[in-house]
């Protein structure tokens, strides 16, 4: 059976989703599956990348609920024979995970963490998980109002601090006024709670990883970001190997029994490694791992297909990632098709 794989998160902008990098990794693999873009925004660049995606389909926002998403996936399956999904966006994962049995029945195979695993790494529970896997974690308080935020910043967590949304956005704030402004911005978009976190000094290091069905880490690559955008997104980076981070990753896999891709975001200083965040999906820099010989998206597909993949924990250090902007020209009809037929090719 040829794999026909739906990939979301195809917004390859200066704040990119992982989808196009996942697609590129699979396009460079030996298996050469057919790739279908799954998009929530007609302007996602991936919608127009016909060199990567056979077709691309518009889907209703996950915030509108499961019903619409399921109907959309069902329609896409009818038109393309879609038989595998690689969800790449935080906002859609809770829905996809919750309704995995329905996806299975529809013949849409996936490898995702369970609901329990997904919740264990949520930002408001990370303090507990960090203790259990034996690593440091910045002091974090969950607040449900601006008054509460101000009280925390005047007491338990002094400035400078980090103000974060439960799902998206994080800002370093140096005074109360900016903290209120940023918390209000996040709450307006994503609601409460807001997290207030101690700011840790040191170097940011990140690890991308993949665990199999038994929670065994079968692939991983660590990097240090060299240059980032104003949102902290990587622009240049270098591969590193920190044995403490490798050990932390293994403990995370064993303790949670994690299934699927993940990213560990950490800070390191003279006190050790602080676990800042765990993303339950591939990060946008996943192609860096592919470029140094660890094709995690292909390994994920192998696990879904065969129940296992060849373990690959070796990669060269000192390899350098350079992200850049580029353009291509396509026809307006692609945009029109996406608008009217909800897919680039205009299939009815």
């Amino acid at each position, binding site marked *: 059976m040829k794999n026909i794989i739906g990939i979301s998160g195809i917004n390859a902008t200066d704040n990119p989703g992982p989808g196009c990098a996942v697609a590129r990794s699979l396009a460079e693999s030996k298996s050469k599956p057919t790739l279908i873009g799954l998009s929530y925004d007609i302007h996602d660049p991936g919608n127009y990348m016909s060199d990567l995606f056979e077709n691309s389909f518009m889907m209703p926002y996950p915030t509108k609920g499961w019903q619409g998403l399921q109907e959309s996936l069902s329609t896409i399956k009818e038109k393309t024979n879609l038989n595998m999904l690689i969800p790449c966006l935080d906002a859609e994962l809770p829905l996809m995970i919750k309704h995995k049995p329905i996806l299975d029945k529809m013949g849409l195979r996936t490898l995702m963490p369970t609901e329990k695993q997904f919740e264990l790494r949520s930002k408001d529970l990370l303090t507990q998980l960090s203790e259990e896997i034996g690593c440091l974690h910045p002091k974090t308080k969950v607040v449900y109002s601006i008054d509460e935020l101000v009280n925390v910043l005047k007491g338990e967590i002094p400035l400078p601090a980090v103000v974060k949304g439960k799902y998206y956005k994080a800002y370093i704030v140096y005074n109360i006024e900016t903290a209120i402004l940023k918390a209000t911005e996040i709450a307006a978009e994503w609601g409460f709670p807001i997290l207030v976190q101690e700011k840790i000094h040191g*170097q940011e290091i990140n690890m991308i990883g993949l665990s199999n069905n038994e929670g065994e880490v079968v692939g991983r690559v660590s990097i240090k970001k060299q240059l980032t955008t104003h949102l902290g997104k990587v622009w240049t980076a270098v*591969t590193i190997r920190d*044995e403490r981070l490798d050990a932390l990753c293994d403990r995370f896999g064993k303790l949670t029994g994690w299934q699927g891709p993940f990213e560990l975001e950490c800070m390191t200083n003279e006190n050790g490694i602080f676990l800042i965040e765990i993303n339950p999906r591939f990060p946008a820099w996943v192609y860096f791992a592919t470029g140094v010989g660890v094709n995690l998206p292909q390994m994920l597909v192998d696990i879904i297909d065969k129940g296992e993949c060849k373990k690959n924990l070796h990669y060269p250090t000192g390899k350098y990632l350079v992200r850049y902007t580029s353009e291509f020209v396509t026809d307006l009809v692609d945009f029109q098709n996406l608008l009217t037929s909800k897919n680039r090719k205009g299939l009815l």
Partner: protein
Amino acid sequence: MSEINHLNLSKNGLVFDPRTGESYQLNPIAQKIIVLFQSGKTSEQAAKLIADEFHISLEQAFSDILEFQVQLSIIGLAS
């Protein structure tokens, strides 16, 4: 000084620490000291070779090596 064996010294004189991702530019004597230590030379043996190659006194070479070792420790390049 085996604890610097993990460092990667490039031809253009930059040393890369693969544990942290940090790079540092070294002068020619510092580069030579790294090469000598990574080849298993002791401080005394390295000082003799440095003194011969850079035409400085043995005392000066030994002093430079000790100072460099301290700097490596301070910036965390030598564990």
